[in-house]
């Protein structure tokens, strides 16, 4: 069965990748149960706020250069546009591009629209976006409200596309449809695959597609060592750039959770091979990643030379950092797959990986050939104890941390990082998902851990004056996963 089909929506992750939101055990067991598809996506009886697919979709659509976005929703769904705008400005400036401005208009669905429909509003928002921003494409972001009242985005998109003469792309990222927020990435990619991407006119043998979040420009200098060019996707790619991603020599990504769907489709439909080893985090994975890219671009011997040189360059400082960090325990808290990436750096710094929580877990990926980063991590670091899956849920994570008592915490998710701070654990925020790639990434993480330890008075001071909101009953409760089993009133 082909991975891509022309239907308006891509299947949600619970059904497509058998994703789960709750697990506790160890890495080996999770990997085995994943292979047997022995975990389901059952909820918990009590939960704290999650995130939604729309929030993930907008991290892609807001950042396409020359695109505009119509949020077909009440105004609350698009309020984080200002934060994205600032990110877009900062990163585009850092990369020497023209300052990126996020161009978004909310159709501002109101009560009467939920009764009489909001198609007219959507049309007028599309035309207004055309007038204000003169875009080359417009994304329509769906919402819970537009989804439940049954708005026909497809018809409005087709109609306005005919009128305006450029692609109008519905993104079906209604928050209620999937419990796995990463489904929003797939929704945005599916829209782009359906309506924007074109067949290759030629092959660009030295061009590598890198699917990433909008992070630092570290892949260009890194792949320059192999005389390769980087096509950063999708944030800060232009519409033309997206049309031609099928011309690249291969596709890589910084996180399986982000981009295995589009990478698999690019390979299946357009013959762009996907790098099927884990992303370049930690020395061993970086070696293998470079080798795989070199294989696709006929640069094997150059790659071996680069690997040797880079190892030699980082080793002295790594030795020094290992001495400084010796005996420290690290806990990793991040999205699925990316947590494995960060965790793979831990051993290179001589640290102990005390546990790991991923915010969901896909039991498998879109294609059976794609990297299983959990298995790769077990291979490189051995079995890992204290492995859990939950979608934020600080009331649970708190208990896990209090039990494990890590010396250091590393988090890649906004508004979870402060939990470590409140507990007095020096915590790194891995907000820039490109920051720790490659050999330098290992060294930089070591320096950051060292600095976090040396400045820990700040977090200790905060912890000393923090009152947590949880009841004594909960703090004394033995089982952090109490609400997954049932509830008694």
């Amino acid at each position, binding site marked *: 069965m082909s991975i891509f089909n022309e239907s308006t929506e891509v299947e949600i992750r619970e059904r497509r990748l058998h994703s789960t939101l709750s697990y506790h055990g160890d890495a080996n067991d999770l990997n085995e149960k994943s292979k047997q598809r022995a975990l389901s996506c059952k909820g918990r009886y009590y939960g704290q*706020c999650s995130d939604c697919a729309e*929030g993930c979709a907008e991290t892609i659509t807001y950042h396409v250069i020359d695109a505009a976005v119509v949020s077909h929703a009440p105004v609350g769904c698009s309020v984080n546009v*200002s*934060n994205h705008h600032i990110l877009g400005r900062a990163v585009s400036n850092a990369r020497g591009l023209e300052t990126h401005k996020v161009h978004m208009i909310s159709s*501002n669905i*109101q009560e009467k629209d939920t009764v009489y429909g909001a198609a007219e509003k959507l049309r007028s928002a599309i035309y207004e976006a055309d007038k204000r921003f003169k875009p080359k494409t417009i994304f329509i972001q769906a919402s819970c409200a537009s989804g439940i009242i049954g708005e026909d985005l497809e018809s409005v998109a087709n109609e306005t596309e005919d009128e305006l003469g450029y692609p109008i792309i519905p993104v079906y990222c209604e928050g209620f449809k999937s419990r796995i927020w990463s489904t929003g990435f797939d929704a945005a990619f599916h829209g782009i695959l359906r309506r924007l991407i074109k067949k290759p006119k030629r092959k660009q043998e030295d061009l590598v597609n890198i699917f990433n979040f909008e992070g630092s420009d570290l892949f260009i200098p890194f792949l320059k060592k192999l005389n390769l060019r980087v096509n950063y996707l999708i944030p800060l790619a232009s519409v033309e750039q997206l049309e031609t991603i099928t011309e690249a020599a291969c596709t890589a990504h910084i996180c399986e959770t982000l981009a295995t769907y589009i990478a698999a489709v690019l390979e299946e439909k357009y013959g762009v091979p996907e790098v099927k080893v884990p992303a370049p985090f930690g020395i061993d994975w970086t070696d293998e990643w470079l080798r795989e890219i070199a294989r696709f671009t006929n640069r094997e011997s150059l790659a071996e030379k680069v690997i040797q040189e880079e190892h030699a360059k980082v080793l002295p400082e790594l030795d020094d950092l290992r001495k400084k960090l010796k005996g420290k325990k690290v806990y990793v808290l991040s999205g699925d797959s990316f947590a494995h990436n960060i965790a793979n750096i831990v051993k290179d710094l001589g640290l102990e990986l005390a546990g790991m929580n991923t915010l969901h877990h896909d039991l498998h990926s879109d294609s059976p050939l794609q990297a299983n980063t959990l298995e790769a991590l077990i291979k490189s670091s051995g079995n890992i104890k204290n492995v859990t899956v939950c979608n934020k849920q600080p009331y649970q994570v708190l208990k896990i941390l209090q039990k494990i008592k890590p010396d250091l915490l590393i988090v890649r998710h906004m508004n979870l990082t402060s939990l470590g701070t409140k507990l007095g654990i020096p915590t790194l925020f891995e907000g820039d998902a490109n920051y720790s790639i490659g050999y330098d990434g290992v060294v930089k993480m070591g320096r950051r851990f060292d600095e976090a330890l040396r400045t820990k008075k700040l977090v200790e001071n905060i912890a000393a004056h923090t009152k947590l909101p949880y009841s004594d009953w909960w703090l004394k409760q033995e089982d952090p996963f109490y609400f997954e089993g049932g*509830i008694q009133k």
Partner: protein
Amino acid sequence: MSTLIEQPRYACALAAQQTVLAIPNSHPIVHAGPGCSSKAFGFAAFGAGFQGEGYAGGSHVSCTNSSEQEVVFGGENKLRDTITGALKILNGDLFVVLTGCTSDIVGDDSISVAKEFATEGYPVVGAETAGFKGNSYYGHEVVVNAIIEQFVGDIKPQVQEGLVNVFSVVPYQDPYWRGDLEGIKNLLEKIGLKVNILFGESSAGVSEWKDIPNAEFNLLLSPWVGLDTVKLLEEKYKTPFLHYPVFPVGAQETSRFLREVGKFVELDEKKVELVIGKEEKRFYDYFISISDFIAEYRNNLPVELYTVADSTYGIGVSSYLVNELGFIPKGIYAIDDPQNSIQETLNDILLSRGGEFKDTFKVEADGGLIEADIRKKIGESKKAIILGSSWEKFLAEETNNLYTYLSVPLHETVILNKSYVGYTGGLSLIEDLYSSLFKRKTTTSRTQLFTN
């Protein structure tokens, strides 16, 4: 006014979870899709100068994370489970159920579910705050009124002389709310009142809310937000209210405000004047010390004023800058989407503070249109200062003018107890306005930033 919104300046009604969080030891329980709570937090708390999760906000907010199942089969049972869990694991004096689009469109009777718990004696309140029902200001009023109706309830007031409940800025939606409410409380205490400030660091929390019916009067310090609340309290507890529509910033307005409050509750006039005299002396001792700077930097001083904020803060600050610092008002934009019927009143309030404001006032929630209007008015001028959000910062930088932060979203500053209210707030605003001159590029009195 446009109904479409570019560059949103408020979130949806569900952002009233921040109103709940602003009451010490209180918890929202959100019955909505999985992203609503964290988006509201991202905008209203993170995007208001990194005010953060506080005691129990951010990712700690209890939520049903409604999915397809709740949309198809209804979410009342899921809500019951979530309330039960929240009551079990959280320490709190008050729990407020807030609904989102999913539950309100499918017709869950969430308020009745909340009532089931209240009937059993739990401090649980329910409010319908679906995003399509209104904005942050609307949600704030709905939640405040729900707490009064369902939690404070029908009790017989025992009026305490000199006790006042204050209803003013909307927590978090006003990024300076913590300092503002503390400042207002301090001012009122100085003239001898006892204050239920209701929100923030200087509030005693739920005990103040329970004390609401006992106040001698309610003070509404805002042009329109909260009017329904003080009217509700008048009807429910027969408490009179003073509606003072101009947020007091600087010496003139603050003194006027204190006099009016004093008159309303018949405080000893001499005592009030003594306080005002002392405060004004302090204010003007500081105030005149800007004269050296003003004299030296005459050529660099911004003089044209643009304000983008809600009608509470926007009118108060603009009046101060025009009347006490000589600014020329160019565009005063109210972003809080008041009903059409009171837009004229808002204009009149502003005009009551100076004829200079004629034709400067606009009610507009579409930030894109505000930007376009300022661009048109500002033209080639380099003598303007724009008070507003991060969006106005970019506009000011692009047009080579100055900016000062006044309204959300604010992503590039850290706010703790800053405030522009009262005498001290007025001084603080002077510092920020004129210091902004030096944050742009190296400025000296001899390099004429605006004219070269």
